[in-house]
């Protein structure tokens, strides 16, 4: 079962349709799917799922970045995670990375730096962010654009993050996350 975590600051927000529903649609084609708001995650939710996807949120919604205490479960969670945009930023901040200003809106070229099970070579992605990550030594950078790191992996856990939005373009990355990890 895939657990999709809604990273919008408001529960059941208008942004849910844009940032969470498309992920659910992709995940449901491959597996059973459950959705929870990040503020309402329970130990049972975490125990019941096989993998977890943290959604993105609107450009102006950066609330999760200031609520890292809600993500303490990341420390002990050992199943695969894919963080998308705000999801990746939150993961990275939790594990000691820093934010930096970096605005990319629209189709953006990225190139793969390190072989991984989710993607390869150079490809175009849909970017929607005003901040990027300066990854801490906890992470390997898997892909980057001309401006910033676009994909990371935790060095010892199955935690992946993409700054771009694979639910908009490159949905096979989400499919691959569900099927291959």
């Amino acid at each position: 079962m895939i657990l999709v975590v809604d990273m919008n600051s408001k529960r059941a927000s208008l942004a849910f349709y844009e940032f969470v529903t498309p992920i659910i649609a992709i995940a449901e084609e491959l597996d059973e799917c459950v959705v929870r708001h990040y503020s309402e995650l329970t130990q049972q939710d975490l125990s019941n799922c096989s993998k977890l996807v943290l959604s993105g949120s609107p450009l102006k919604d950066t609330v999760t970045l200031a609520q890292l205490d809600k993500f303490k479960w990341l420390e002990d969670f050992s199943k695969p995670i894919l963080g998308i945009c705000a999801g990746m930023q939150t993961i990275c901040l939790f594990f000691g990375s820093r934010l930096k200003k970096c605005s990319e809106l629209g189709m953006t070229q990225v190139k793969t730096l390190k072989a991984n099970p989710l993607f390869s070579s150079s490809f175009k992605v849909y970017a929607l962010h005003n901040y990027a990550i300066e990854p801490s030594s906890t992470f390997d950078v898997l892909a980057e654009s001309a401006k910033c790191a676009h994909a990371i992996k935790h060095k010892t856990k199955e935690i992946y993050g993409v700054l771009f939005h694979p639910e908009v373009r490159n949905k096979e990355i989400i499919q691959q996350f569900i099927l291959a990890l």
Partner: protein
Amino acid sequence: MRLGVLFSGGKDSTLALHRAAENEEVACLITLVSENKESLMFHTPNIDVTTLQAEASDLPLVQKVTAGKPEAELNDLEEAIVQAVKAYTIEGVVSGAIESVYQSERIQRICNRLGVWCFNPLWKRNQKALLEEVVAKGFKVIISGVFAFPLDSKWLGKELNTKLISKLLGLEKEFGLSPSGEGGEIETTVLDAPLFKKKIEILDYEVDAKGNSGVFKIKQARLVTK
């Protein structure tokens, strides 16, 4: 949050309006009247009907004329949003974009520059499900423009219903046509919707069509009791 809905009067922006109204406070509609029939950003058939649709919805309408030249038309959109921010203190903008990265990234950029929220509540929505939702919610939608093979004048003015959806899905299978017109194959006009307090009655119209391209132009219409 007070929102302005980018509104063309077609099924997508009207459905986006309804989604927005279910979640937040819609303060106004924003319409760009494009003089360019080929505009990639703004719909053109029956854009004048937005005045009646706004009145039917009991919402103020910010309307701005644009020459519709690629990229320059975005300055007009930005000015219209600024006008809506000033007049109706909106904090965010809603669009009916479904698949078009071209449209959505441009709207996102404008909103980002202005510091307002941007919502796309139909984003990546399955087109069949979207059409079915429009019909299930009781929208009265007519086809007001066709711009692709094998569509022709016979489609113009037809009301969207389950039978018509089946036909559109058949064309998707056979010809790769986007059933909700995401590629600009079809334009629609909404005559009634749950949020409308009155419905639109067409008094006079003309069909201007040639081959696989044509419009159903509403020349005269009025609001009537539902």
